[in-house]
């Protein structure tokens, strides 16, 4: 009687939400093109690329953590401090590769600290990374207290080239971040360790019973997240030619929202790096829209918060649906008292 429905490609590849987000991004871009002539201006497109590139690099690390059911709110501060660290190394007369490595190592070390506390001591990851966010911002303030607001601004030619090379009209770091994204996607889809990440997030108990080292994986995911945030920070420092205390301020929430919109879930076991790209594009276009339409920055915070709440509600509804609760039970006037 009933034939077996063939699963659609999008469903079998777990790309449903990613497709939705990409569609919204394209719609948003079309709307912006039609209502604001400045949107397709070469300057605006160039600044969009510069905005997407670091966010995407940071989002790759965040998405990895999302897959295993964790997240890292210290990325914005890590980005700032690693840019400053490499700038200070250059200031002290070190060669460019050493300065580059200094920045990355700073970020990876902070990531390792996060990972140690979360994975091996089992402390709530939100509290740890928030605390580290505060501590890192404090350190940045102390380090920069003798500097002017602009911070470090003079860099050798070789360092600036790291961020300012381009290829065929596209910004170099933008291309680099895209290649990185494709590489991560391949890793996640085609290799065993990549699949293990999703398995670990989907069912930690089963994954541990299967012999996946949960603590070690979590630890290295945090190191990866810190390292990628540091990479973004160093590249952006090279790109904009200055390291100051404002870099990456409030970035963590944007990345967090981007990952949620792009198909991640705070419960873990879901998500893809292509989705991270979609989410970052969405958040960047949204910010760009505010700037093009001259909306004051306070309203941006309101909208970002509202989007976060909406996404969380949607995520919550999806989780409840996955547990088999009927719609009327979730949205009805008198839901079942036996929640959880």
């Amino acid at each position, binding site marked *: 009687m009933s034939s077996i429905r063939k699963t659609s490609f999008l469903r079998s590849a777990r790309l449903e939400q990613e497709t939705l987000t990409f569609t919204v991004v394209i719609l948003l871009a079309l709307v912006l093109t039609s209502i604001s002539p400045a949107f397709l201006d070469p300057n605006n497109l160039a600044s969009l690329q510069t905005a997407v590139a670091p966010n995407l690099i940071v989002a790759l690390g965040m998405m990895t953590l999302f897959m295993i059911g964790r997240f890292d709110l210290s990325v914005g501060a890590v980005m700032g401090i690693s840019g400053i660290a490499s700038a200070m190394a250059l200031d002290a007369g070190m060669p460019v590769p050493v300065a580059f490595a200094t920045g990355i190592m700073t970020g990876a070390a902070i990531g390792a600290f996060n990972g140690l*506390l979360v994975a091996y*001591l*089992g*402390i*709530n990851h*939100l*509290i*740890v990374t*928030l*605390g*580290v*966010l*505060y*501590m*890192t*911002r*404090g*350190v940045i*303030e*102390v380090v920069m*207290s003798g500097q002017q607001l602009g911070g470090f601004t003079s860099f050798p030619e070789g360092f600036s080239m790291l961020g300012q090379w381009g290829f065929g009209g596209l910004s170099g770091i933008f291309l680099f971040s895209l290649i990185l994204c494709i590489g991560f996607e391949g890793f996640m889809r085609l290799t065993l360790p990549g699949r293990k990440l999703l398995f670990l997030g989907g069912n930690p108990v089963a994954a541990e019973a299967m012999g996946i080292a949960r603590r070690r994986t979590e630890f290295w995911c945090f190191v990866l997240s810190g390292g990628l945030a540091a990479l973004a920070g160093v590249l952006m420092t090279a790109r904009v030619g200055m390291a100051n205390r404002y870099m990456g301020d409030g970035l963590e*929430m944007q990345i967090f929202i981007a990952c949620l919109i792009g198909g991640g879930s*705070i419960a873990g076991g879901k998500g893809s790096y292509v989705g991270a790209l979609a989410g970052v594009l969405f958040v960047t276009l949204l910010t760009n829209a505010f700037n093009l339409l001259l909306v*004051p920055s*306070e*309203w*941006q*915070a*309101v*909208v*970002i*918060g*509202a989007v*976060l*709440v909406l996404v*969380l*509600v949607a*995520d*919550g*509804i999806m*989780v*409840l649906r996955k547990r088999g609760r009927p719609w009327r039970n*979730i949205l009805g006037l008198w*839901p079942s*008292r*036996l*929640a*959880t």
Partner: protein
Amino acid sequence: MTVTQRLDDTPARKHKPLLAGNGFGSNILALALVTLAIFAFLALTRQNFATWQNLNSILFGVSIDFLAIVGFTYVMVMREIDLSVGSVFAFTGTLTGALLVGGWGFWPAAGVALLAAAAIGFVNGFLVVRFNINSLMLTIGSMLLVRGLSNVLANDLGGQTYPRAFRSLARTNLFDIRITIVVMIVLVLLAWGFQRRAALYRKMCFIGENVKSATVHGIQVGTIKILAFVASAMTAGVAGIFTASRITHADVRMGLGLEFVMVTAAIIGGASLYGGRGDLRGSALGLLLLALVLNGMIMYDIEPVFQQFVIGALLIATVAFDTVLNRRGQ
């Protein structure tokens, strides 16, 4: 393994009483002694410290923050958390000020602002209960949202000072001390009674210990949680009104980072991220302890920017202790 077997396997074990003072910081006396020790240390080493003016200003600051921690502590008892307190605090204060500048009377303005705070608390609680959302995450969202609204208001005011009558509110005295200090003492005494006698507090602890079991036993988990979130937002609102009156003008930095001070203070004072306990007396002492530490840092000329680092480190340290000592179900 069948159920009967499992029952046979486990020897009849007596559970420890839930609140028998076996957690980190749940021993009020020890906490009071530590606070006293820090106080004595500062008083002996720094002569500026033990002046009437300095102590009064510390106590005044603590008493205002204390108003905000009342609801917050009881939200934590139920294994939820409300990180939007700092923003609600700022929003309510700024809204009251804005309405007063717009020519409203004090009581209508404060009433409307508190209603707005209650609405925010209700939305938080409702979404958490209905969609089973992690309250840590949700309240970060509402924290951003409300902070944005508060900044919109503050920018509209553009640093205008509030009317004189409002400015003098925080400096109202009762029995020759600030009214908020009196309120704090009264509330601590009330909380003592509430925690010893009230069935509601027992229910809240039960919800925090085991929400499923509480539901099965017919406790109205949803209602109590929503009420606690509303209470948390409203107490934060009251504190915000007093603070707005104290700082006399709209300020975008008002209440920034307050939520983390509160998490730290509440956990020092005996609450736990894992729910099931929490003590308003302890929270008050925790706030006092933090205030003394920060004041001591100023007394020792440690850079003020370093405070952010210390608050972050204290937050991680207290939560680490909390986790290691109260680890459950692992």
